């Protein structure tokens, strides 16, 4: 038996989470370092996965398969395709930055409190989420995936509800109330989605008799597993509903602004850049592969919803007064692009969507973490409380500008490539939708630049005049992300090389070919 690389990659943060939680209360700095080291080691393993992965080889590689619950037809089956490799790498990459950025987020309010344990809890929960997210990227058994898809809600819930910004305009008590509201909303939305999916998972078992993604997809492809059109559609809807809540797609998105607004910036990054990606990833891996016919059947409706997400999210982002809420609505708009790219059913669209998942993760992480540093300095999330920051903290403002420009997909920065691919991919098949979606970019320019202008330029407000620039720890977080944004903007090939074969496979699952350019016959 070969070395179970995928299991170890997921188990490492899980064990790390337990170890971090077990560190004595007084040694909280040690807990932080432990968590950081574990996350870095996980990153190394993720890189090993990416290196060992052969883009031209088998569809699922590094596979592992063990019996688990025979009565339910469940096996412990792992395997990665190019899309999963890219997203595992993204997850493993972002977690160390999230930990580093949240270094002081869970410190005790008064120094020297001996019995304060939440610090350990905070970092343990982040690692637990990482383990579950990685496992859900790796699982090729539908049931196994479902388990981690659902279970990750619990640590996420405690992260949102248990830790928030120290500063709050209405005081600590109101902050706690709003936090727990946001956490409950997050959990209920996702739990309902997950439970609807559970009904579909059971239905899938009744129809297929097992949960193995590869077996079912193969049986579907060679026609040995027939599904009535109505059955397939219901099952598809059950799965898609859960993923659309998680992603989130309009009109199931309303939990995201609350959750991102109330949680600390690193946790907000964890939600939108890591956990939500499981939703869009699962659309690609499960919806399209298991239910190709139903996916095609639902495409028009989903594209319209995605389009609404793009425009609606962007419009609401323009109107926000709260920095974090603004970024949340921007994310909703971007998730619209991702879902549009997936369901445009062109290889450019799907490659673009996968690339978009990676790039959105990095760009949102950069923007949100810097915004978090900004908010922690001034103690307010309101845009109106800032002004002229670039004069007092030029590095902070400069990196914030790069993050903003990445969010609006400026050419030369990573998100541009993916957004362009998505739009091209959509346009070749659905020109009208592609054209309308382009307005999302225009609005993106509006909300990001207005945000930058109002907070960073103009006369220096007295409250921000003493604001220190980025500290070393913060620079360590920001600089690599900015470098990556530029690098992947100029040279996205490493990611696209890994992703493309997997996308071609998915395209062949749904039996779609790229539309060929028509040449007008010469008169």
């Amino acid at each position, binding site marked *: 038996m070969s070395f179970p690389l995928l299991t170890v990659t997921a188990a490492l943060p899980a064990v790390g989470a337990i170890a971090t939680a077990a560190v004595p209360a007084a040694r909280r700095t040690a807990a932080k370092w432990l968590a950081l080291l574990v996350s870095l080691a996980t990153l190394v393993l993720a890189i090993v996965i990416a290196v060992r992965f052969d883009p031209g080889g088998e569809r699922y590689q590094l596979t592992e398969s063990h019996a688990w*619950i025979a*009565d*339910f037809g469940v096996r412990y089956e792992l395997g990665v395709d190019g899309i999963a490799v890219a997203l595992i790498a993204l997850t493993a990459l972002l977690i160390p930055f999230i930990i580093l950025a949240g270094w002081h987020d869970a410190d005790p309010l008064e120094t020297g409190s001996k019995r304060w344990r939440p610090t350990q809890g905070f970092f343990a929960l982040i690692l637990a989420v990482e383990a579950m997210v990685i496992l859900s990227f790796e699982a090729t058994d539908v049931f196994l995936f479902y*388990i981690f898809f659902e*279970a990750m809600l619990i640590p996420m819930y405690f992260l949102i509800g*248990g830790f928030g910004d120290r500063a709050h305009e209405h005081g600590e008590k109101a902050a706690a109330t709003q936090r727990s509201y946001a956490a*409950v909303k997050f959990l*209920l939305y996702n739990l309902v989605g997950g439970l609807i999916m559970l*009904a579909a998972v059971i239905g899938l078992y009744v129809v297929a008799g097992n949960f193995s993604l590869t077996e079912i997809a193969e049986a579907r492809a060679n026609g040995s597993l027939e599904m009535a059109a109505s059955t397939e559609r219901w099952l598809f809807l059950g799965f898609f509903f859960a993923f659309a809540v998680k992603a989130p797609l309009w009109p199931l998105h309303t939990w995201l602004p609350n959750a991102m607004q109330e949680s600390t910036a690193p946790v907000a990054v964890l939600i939108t850049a890591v956990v939500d990606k499981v939703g869009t990833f699962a659309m690609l891996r499960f919806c399209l592969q298991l239910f190709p016919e139903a996916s095609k059947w639902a495409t028009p409706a989903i594209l319209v919803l995605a389009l609404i997400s793009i425009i609606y999210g962007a419009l609401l982002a323009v109107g926000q007064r709260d920095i974090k809420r603004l970024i949340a609505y921007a994310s909703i708009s971007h998730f619209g692009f991702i879902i549009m790219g997936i369901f445009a059913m062109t290889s450019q669209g799907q490659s673009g969507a996968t690339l978009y998942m990676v790039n959105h993760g990095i760009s949102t992480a950069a923007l949100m973490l810097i915004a978090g540093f900004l908010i922690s300095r001034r103690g307010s999330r309101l845009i109106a409380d800032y002004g002229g920051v670039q004069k007092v903290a030029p590095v902070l403002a400069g990196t914030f500008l790069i993050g903003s420009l990445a969010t609006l997909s400026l050419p030369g920065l990573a998100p541009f490539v993916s957004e362009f691919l998505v739009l091209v991919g959509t346009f070749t098949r659905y020109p009208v939708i592609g054209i309308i979606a382009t307005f999302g970019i225009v609005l993106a320019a509006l909300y990001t630049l207005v945000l930058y202008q109002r907070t960073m330029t103009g006369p220096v407000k007295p409250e921000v005049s003493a604001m220190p620039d980025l500290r070393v720890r913060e620079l360590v977080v920001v600089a690599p992300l900015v470098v990556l944004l530029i690098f992947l903007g100029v040279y996205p090939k490493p990611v696209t090389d890994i992703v493309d074969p997997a996308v071609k496979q998915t395209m062949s699952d749904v039996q779609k070919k790229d539309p060929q350019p028509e040449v007008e016959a010469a008169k």
Partner: protein
Amino acid sequence: MSASAVHSLWTTAVEPITKIDAPTFEYGQMAPTLIIVGAAIIGILIEAFVPRKSRYYVQMFVSVVALVAAFAAVVALAADGYGTTKARIAAMGAIAVDGPALFLQGTILLAALVGLFTFAERRLDPVVHGNRVDSFAAQAASVPGSESEKAAVKAGFTTTEVFPLLLFAVAGMLIFPAANDLLTLFVALEVFSLPLYLLCALARRKRLMSQEAAVKYFLLGAFASAFTLFGIAMLYGYAGSMSYATIAQVVEGTVQDVNPALADTMGNDALLLVGAALLVMGLLFKVGAVPFHMWTPDVYQGAPTPVTGFMAAATKVAAFGALLRVLYVVLPGLRWDWRPVMWAVAIVTMLGGAIVAITQTDIKRLLAYSSIAHAGFILAGVIATTPDGVSSVLFYLAAYSFVTIGAFAVVTLVRDAGGEATHLSKWAGLGRRSPLVAAVFAVFLLAFAGIPLTSGFAGKFAVFKAAAEGGAAPLVVIGVISSAIAAFFYIRVIVLMFFSEPRPEGPTVAVPSPLTITAIGVGVAVTLVLGVAPQYFLDLAGQAGVFVR
């Protein structure tokens, strides 16, 4: 008129009695029940003869030994193949020894053992007059608040009768799912119900509430028993027999000999339908299914919490076992008639329990409504009418019992000056003050909510899978929706514990003795093991999925 004419008119001549067949009784196969009954009788003798000071220890010793021995007997029987190949009907056709019976008996015995630990807990209440006290009234017969009560407390009386009462209840519960004729079923029903009525009345604190709960439980339970008995009478009229197998044969129309005394009524479908409905109604009452659930919240709230935990777990196991046997062995020929009704019951039970639970403000009432919702989920598995359905129900019951006992054991720990602090508002901020207790309770709540990696999820999945395969897909959808509703109030409690500010005059968490710690620890361990690696137990339940007839 001659004597012989009268004779021919009113009676028939009988064969002269030359010999009576001595009833055969398989002591070995009945060992689990016999051990418990014997220990219960010894328990009564202990009450009579052992000095007051040492009763508690002797009673506890006897009870624990009896439960362990009975469980060992169940395991031995199962290992001997009585659950599968050697499944048979014992005690002159009165008791079935088969897979479901043994599995449920094992579950009941383990639940009772864990429950017993919470019964015996004596460290939670403050020491009164130098005596350690448990959750039960000092002297049940003394009027609450009276001088005689004060005297009893001062004298350090304790109600050690709870141990034999528990054992009698367990004995009834062991027979209930194994009963193979209607009379045995009824006797078992009464044998386990009566001690429970009594136990409910024995709370040390809030005695009036406890007695009120007991009276409610008794009155409604008596009604339900009467219905059951009426149904049994009708079924007898219909089939001319109390035996499950014979009734089933009459339902299927395969029986040959007609009892001459019942020639007019035998095979009368009206009797069958009304009788079956009344019988099932009585069982649904014990299960706590809507619309027969009205007693559940009041009784769960008023009864001493250890009793509530035991009752919620073990009664449900026994009653579902009996319900399964009645529906699968006696009435399979009638399933096109009872399935639609059970569909309706399952739907209103799942939704009713989940929706009403949202408005509850008392943790014990909340758990009561949650148990109603869970009864609905289990009913979905009952409706499947497949061997998978049976084994999924068995698994669910085993998983659910330990979560329930554990959860109620945690409830006993959270106390203020008035005893247990069951009002939800008092639980605010518990996670800050005692993170471990709150975390354990959160695990139980997540299991109730059916979050993956807990036993609740494995059970729910098994039941819903069986229901979907049995053609009850709409039930699964409704089950999933009510799970979502139910998740709301479980999460509300978690929010309250972890994200709310603790109240300054809030309750404290008592430090329990190893007894309660064991009960809670077993609950957590079973919850996690059945959640992560349920295969062994699913196999066990799968092997036990076939009834003997």
